[in-house]
């Protein structure tokens, strides 16, 4: 077993921009109320106006994926009480942000310019906007974060990896706090066409994870940011602790570039590692925020993985997918879902898998159909969840989150 005694890492701020609106609570409240955000087969952030939040210069200097990240970070830092001044030496505060493809809208736009007008008209801002590390760089600049600052790229597992990596940076002493999360803005012609050609997107435009009629994922966009702090430091400064990141597990399938291992062995191991890291067992898990993409392969493999990881408890634990409400936010998904999970645990509610109606043979877990319901917890003192993120390339991440 790999568990060692490591410092605890707490969540003191959360922020989100999602297809359900700006704000972490907006996401939580609308999803638990059964609201979904799909329009024309996608889940955009239609009401997001960058200059409502950023100066014209800031907005021009940021691809949409970075704009989402900045706005989510402002909310998270304000919640942590950091809006005036960070509580630690700036060199002890890092930033690790995940993304799937970075500024692909900028890339596509400038490629159009190159083709149609020639090289001289390509924007000098193209590289600083499109680079996949633009998000973490922008947050570092905006908030004066001078510790380890970088981005993590692992397709749809990136948000989860970013948070896990941030946790480790704190536990290893590289930073006292890390601003982390994920962002994505890939509702672009090339991304859309590419996912369509590989039959990953739902042709019906319906995101109904775990339902027998599921036929692919629906793309969304947005970001979420969490402020993570060394637990001892956060308590010493009297911070409000929203949650603890108790465990992190990460594996690779070594199976196929896009398809998950059908038995879900890698996903199962990620969940077991996260529980082990947390010093917990399946009996302690009150809720699972599934990766639940609404693709045939993921939802079946994830169900198998859950049965392997949780054993007899797999049928007792409510399992739901945020993607039933906001679609798949790719590299932002793991972060957005971690935020949704924190609020679900705090409110002791199991949010629903919207659109789930028809079970499939062998997929017999409690997917929380219909509407949200009160969350029963194994302990009166705490609520514990696993949040899964799996990505093309065979990347599997599980976070174990706990709230009081």
């Amino acid at each position, binding site marked *: 077993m790999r568990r060692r005694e490591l410092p605890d890492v707490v969540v003191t701020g959360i922020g989100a921009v999602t297809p359900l609106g700006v704000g972490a609570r907006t996401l939580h409240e609308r999803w638990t109320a059964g609201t979904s955000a799909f329009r024309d087969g996608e889940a955009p952030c239609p009401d997001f106006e960058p200059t409502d939040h950023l100066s014209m*210069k800031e907005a021009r200097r940021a691809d949409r994926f970075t704009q989402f990240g900045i706005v989510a970070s402002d909310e998270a830092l304000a919640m942590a009480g950091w809006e005036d001044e960070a509580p630690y030496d700036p060199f002890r505060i890092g930033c690790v942000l995940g993304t799937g493809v970075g500024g692909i809208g900028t890339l596509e736009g400038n490629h159009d310019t190159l083709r149609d007008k020639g090289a001289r008209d390509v*924007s*000098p*801002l193209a590289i*600083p906007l499109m680079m996949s590390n633009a998000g973490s760089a922008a947050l570092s600049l905006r908030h004066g974060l001078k510790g380890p600052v970088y981005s993590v790229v692992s397709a749809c597992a990136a948000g989860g990896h970013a948070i896990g990596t941030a946790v480790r940076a704190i536990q290893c002493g590289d930073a006292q706090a890390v601003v982390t999360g994920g962002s994505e803005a890939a509702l672009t012609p090339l991304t859309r066409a590419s996912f369509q050609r590989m039959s990953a997107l739902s042709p019906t435009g319906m995101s109904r994870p775990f339902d027998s009629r599921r036929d692919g994922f629906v793309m969304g966009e947005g970001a979420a940011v969490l402020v993570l702090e060394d637990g001892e430091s956060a308590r010493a400064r009297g911070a409000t602790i929203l949650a603890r990141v108790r465990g992190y597990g990460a594996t690779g399938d070594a199976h196929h570039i896009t398809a998950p291992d059908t038995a879900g062995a890698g996903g199962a191991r990620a969940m077991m590692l996260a529980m082990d890291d947390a010093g917990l067992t399946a009996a302690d898990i009150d809720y699972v925020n599934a990766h639940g993409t609404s693709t045939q392969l993921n939802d079946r493999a994830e169900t198998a993985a859950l049965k392997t990881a949780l054993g007899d408890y797999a049928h007792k634990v409510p399992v739901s997918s945020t993607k039933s409400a906001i679609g798949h936010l790719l590299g932002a998904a793991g972060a957005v879902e971690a935020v949704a999970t924190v609020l679900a645990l705090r409110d002791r509610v199991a949010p629903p898998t919207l659109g789930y109606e028809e079970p499939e043979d062998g997929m017999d877990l409690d997917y929380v159909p219909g509407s949200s319901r009160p969350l029963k917890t194994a302990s009166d003192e705490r609520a514990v969840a696993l949040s899964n993120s799996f990505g093309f390339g065979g990347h599997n991440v599980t976070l174990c989150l706990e709230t009081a």
Partner: protein
Amino acid sequence: MSTNTTTIENTVIESLKSFGADAGEITYDATWESIDVDSLDLAELAQVVEDEHGVKMEGEDMKQINTVGDAIAFITEKKAA
């Protein structure tokens, strides 16, 4: 002021405004630093100026261009040459 200079002035000022500089602070004497214009803004400005006036702003020449007025004078001079 010639029509040419007015057009050039318009190009420069409108570009700087579109980059996010405060319109009220864009004067002939304003340095790039004072109106928060950096190397990336100047690269964009050079693009617009070349498109609209056929004048290249690049390399060593840029070291002499430190204010809004410097830029307008430089473009006017090159265009007349």
